[in-house]
């Protein structure tokens, strides 16, 4: 039975195999034994016959995003890929080109191998982002995953072309540039790191990577305005499933990496340096504060607003004093996705006389806080990278 959730390209193969089911019969002349091999029966086990875990949900189609979101994500992808290429050329004397290409092909082929998840009756398969990062390092892993996603989009219509930028960010950049340095490396490179700790680090990194990728899908779809679902409903649909998918991915990655370490230890890359635990702790603390503690932020007016309300009542409704003010106010209205740190929802304005409840538990506020923090952090890192002094290289003989 072809599962609804199977990766799209394997569903197509299943359809073709079913249409062309071949019955091969071999009869031995000397004996009475008849061997029948039914390829359709064998294809059941070779492809994603059972419910597989979400190969459909992470590949976004063009119809689900707006040009603004698509082009923005393409710009982010372009920047990350350019950075990955530059770093790869700097850190390696010889490009591991055949290894990267073959491991990309491995990720492709690995999606054929479906394994059963105990206790659920469904099956899963490896997505490959974190595994590639552990084997090749984050920079090469981004290039390889981007290539895999491009081939899937071009040859198998698994994901749109303008949405390819979003897909590369969600499934390549997030595991390699976010989950690996912030979750895996700090945990796995501690001086007393045991194999149990490294397994935990792998599983946690896989879960965080997939969860953040799914969260990014929710944000990108909502910002494009093509779905009528609210943020809470959409998030409730996507996030729990991808938590389970991340757990499966983590366990599969651990199984593969441990087997490789036993048989071919030179293939598994040791992280070059211990990750910055301070950065990881600060990052997680920022997300916690912005996403959760913001509910306890006061919703009473701050000092300036309180003073203005007493000295110049009605100042908020007064018309702008000049054309420049009016123009800038129009720009601000158009560009503010999160007015008052929540989602703009025209149908749900609170009546002006009621004081809002405290704490203001609101997923829109959480999202606004998290996104704002990420944007500020990203801008800070970008500016810092631009102005930091370049290290002098030793002159080559």
């Amino acid at each position, binding site marked *: 039975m072809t599962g609804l959730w199977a990766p799209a390209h394997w569903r197509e193969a299943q359809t073709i195999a079913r249409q062309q089911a071949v019955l091969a019969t071999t009869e031995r002349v000397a004996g009475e034994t008849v061997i029948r091999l039914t390829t359709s029966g064998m294809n059941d086990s070779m492809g994603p016959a059972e419910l597989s875990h979400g190969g459909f949900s992470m590949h976004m189609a063009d119809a689900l995003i707006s040009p603004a979101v698509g082009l923005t994500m393409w710009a982010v992808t372009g920047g990350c890929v350019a950075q990955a290429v530059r770093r790869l050329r700097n850190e390696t004397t010889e490009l591991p080109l055949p290894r990267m290409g073959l491991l990309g092909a491995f990720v492709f082929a690995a999606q054929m191998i479906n*394994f059963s998840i105990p206790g659920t009756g469904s099956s899963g398969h490896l997505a490959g982002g974190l595994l590639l990062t552990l084997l090749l390092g984050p920079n090469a892993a981004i290039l390889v995953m981007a290539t895999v996603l491009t081939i899937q989009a071009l040859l198998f219509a698994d994901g749109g072309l303008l949405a390819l930028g979003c897909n590369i960010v969600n499934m390549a950049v997030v595991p390699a540039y976010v989950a690996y340095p912030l979750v895996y490396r700090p945990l796995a490179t501690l001086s007393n790191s045991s194999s149990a700790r490294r397994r935990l680090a792998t599983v946690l990194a896989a879960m965080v990577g997939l969860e953040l990728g799914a969260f990014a899908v929710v944000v990108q779809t909502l910002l494009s305005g093509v779905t009528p679902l609210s943020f809470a409903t959409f998030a409730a649909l996507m996030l729990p499933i991808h938590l389970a998918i991340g757990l499966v991915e983590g366990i599969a990655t651990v199984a593969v990496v441990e087997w490789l370490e036993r048989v071919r230890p030179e293939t598994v890359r040791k992280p070059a340096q211990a990750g910055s635990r301070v950065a990881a702790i600060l990052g997680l603390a920022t997300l916690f504060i912005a996403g959760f503690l913001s509910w306890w932020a006061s919703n009473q007016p701050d000092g300036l607003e309180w003073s203005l309300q007493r000295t110049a009542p009605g100042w908020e409704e007064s018309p702008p004093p000049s054309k420049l003010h009016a123009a800038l106010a129009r720009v601000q209205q158009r560009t503010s996705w999160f007015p008052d740190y929540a989602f703009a929802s025209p149908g749900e304005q609170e009546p002006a006389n009621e004081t809002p409840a405290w704490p203001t538990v609101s997923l829109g506020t959480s999202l606004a806080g998290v996104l704002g923090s990420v944007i500020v952090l990203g801008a800070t890192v970008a500016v810092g990278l631009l102005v930091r002094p370049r290290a002098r290289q030793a002159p080559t003989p």
Partner: protein
Amino acid sequence: MSQCASNLWTAALHADDFARRDTWLRRLDPRTHVAITVAYLLAAMSLPLHDLSRLILLAAYPVWTSLAGGIPFAYLARRAAIAAPWIVLVAVSWIWLDRRPLVPGHAWPTAGDLAAASLLARLALTVAAASLLLALTGLSGLTAGLLGMRVPPLCVAQLWILHRYALVLSDEAARLLRARELRSAGHRLTWRQAGILLGQLCVRAFDRAERVHRAMGMRGFDGHSLRAFETRTRRLRATDLAYASVMILWILWARFGDGAAGLGRRLMQLAP
């Protein structure tokens, strides 16, 4: 014989087969088709969700291109069906949640129906445009076009190697699974066994990579220069520029002009 893997790649390589047939549309530079496809995707995706009439107008481009390029509609429809499940869910949610009637006094059709139809039309048109791009240029033409657009040669080299070896490794994976199936007496694959199979496949990938690396070294690859992957891109000709201009102008007119409503009005003026 790994039926599953070869069926999969037969289906995918149909795209390249189309590109080998010689029609005038395929003799155009790949960058022409890339520019037209990007303009088309931006035009279709930038339409407001309830604007169905302009989408119908924009459908003329994939219809014209598939007829002129000799690409069957069934191929485009099958590729749209692959991306359909998630879009269908979102479309159904529109029908369920947005029940404002479009015509006063009638419960049906609703604004949600219009949004759902528009979403499905967007899916069909965007997938058709992307499929036509590959069918007209083929992977080799597309990569040549990408190099002409200053994509890093490392990325293009990756695409080539992946395209070449994905079938080889898919065959190996199918053989591993078949061997396990024949020896497993019907037991399902556990995650631990899957880890071993994946590890085996990974080791074979590494071994093959080592052989490919040695072969490349013997053919002059020094670990830095990617000259072998750079194809010389020819200059754009007047035909390429003219065709791209006409198509992009048409797309802009369909997106921003008075479009179907204007045509309808003029036809009604002509009627007695």
